[in-house]
């Protein structure tokens, strides 16, 4: 098994135009569009990394990241860790499903939790949360609902079902509606000075 630095030189030599960066024990791919080429090289060259064990999303506040762990079943080597960064506003990364079938559900999960769009994925839908859920719950700025305060949608639903909603709860919901606010859980705190 090559060291990470040797692997970096090898990949850069084999695929001209790719730039990799050493991040701790992993390789950061500078241009996400090269991902498919690099993954194909890892799989089909003599490295033989034929098993993609995980596709993970991560939120680093200023960017989103997708982390890949490759192993070789034939050579019993690995993992090779590859990172790809993308911006938060319009996160797009090429999908590896065409190369590794196993990536399909893992990419769906990263999409579900972080909203990373894997281009070329055959069926990019939510996998854990239901259809119609809004927002990306594992992102650090996700604002959770306050589960103790009813909103007007809840009140309307309950009254539609014939449930009597107590006045104070209803008044609170109407108040929120008037201000155009949602009932949100307490915000995450300020970071401690480091």
């Amino acid at each position, binding site marked *: 098994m090559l060291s990470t630095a040797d692997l970096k030189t090898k990949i850069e030599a084999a695929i001209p135009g790719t730039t990799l960066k050493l*991040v*701790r024990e992993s390789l950061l791919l500078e241009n996400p569009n090269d991902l498919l080429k690099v993954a194909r090289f890892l799989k089909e060259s003599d490295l033989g990394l034929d098993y993609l064990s995980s596709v993970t999303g991560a*939120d*680093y*506040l*200023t960017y989103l990241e997708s982390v890949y762990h490759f192993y070789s079943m034939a050579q019993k080597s690995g993992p090779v860790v590859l990172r790809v960064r993308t911006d938060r506003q319009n996160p797009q990364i090429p999908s590896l499903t065409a190369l590794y079938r196993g990536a399909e559900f893992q990419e769906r999960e990263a999409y579900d939790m972080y909203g990373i769009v894997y281009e070329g994925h055959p069926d990019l839908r939510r996998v*854990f*949360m*239901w*259809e*119609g*859920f*809004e*927002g990306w*719950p594992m992102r*650090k*700025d*996700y604002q*959770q*609902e306050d*589960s*103790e*305060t*009813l*909103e007007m*949608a*809840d*009140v309307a*639903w*309950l009254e539609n*079902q014939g*449930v*009597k*909603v*107590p006045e104070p*709860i209803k008044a609170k919901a109407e108040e929120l509606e008037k201000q155009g606010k*949602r009932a949100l*859980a*307490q915000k*995450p*705190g*300020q*970071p*401690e000075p480091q």
Partner: protein
Amino acid sequence: MAFSPNASQVDDGLKSELAKKGIVVTTLNQLYNWGRRSSIWPMQFGLACCAIEMIATACARYDIARFGAELFRPSPRQSDLMIVAGTVTKKMAPQVVRLYNQMAEPKYVITMGACSIAGGPFIDGYNVLRGIDRYIPIDVHLPGCPPRPEALLYGLMELQRKIDGQEIETTEWYQKGLKREYPIPDFGPHGLIPKFNPEVWNPRETENRKERYGEPILIGRKDKAPNLDLPPAPPRSAAPAPAAPPPEPAS
């Protein structure tokens, strides 16, 4: 429903005296409740780790059969007791309410574990319901994470005590107009709609969590991210050992 011990009209001393002679004195209520309490059929479903403990309770060592509740039924139509054993995720909650609605009267519910009572360790999560008592009424709450099998047996005994206190003439399920079906929540854009059913549950007036443990300590974990360009922080065990205690003064 109020709990009242179902005392027989017959003096206890006299009763045992008669029993020695082979005469059994009872009331219809007692006989009826004895029959019901001794063959509670729980529903066979588990939601998370607590279910493993429920399975252990049903196995030979703890043997829930001693209390007559060994017949776990795979259908809500055939069961009297729902043991909500485990984490109720928001995705699962509508099914749990639906199962409750499908059970035949009389029906009882035990919530097993911190998760089904109030969300447990996942109380702050976006995905876990903060207690199934938001949608259906509960008879016995059984705290623990997970409760030991003995605790589940104790919970069952408490339920039996409750059954003992019920009377045929006044029980709810023989009354007219009993409504024990609750609306099944829907999936909304941010969680379940409604967040709770005010017929069954209302927000507490005092914040027990804050009262007991004070304000939450906000460490801002969600506003921080590691900087990968810096070398990783050393593991805790690598921290310098505390200085050795000063040597004993020579005497």
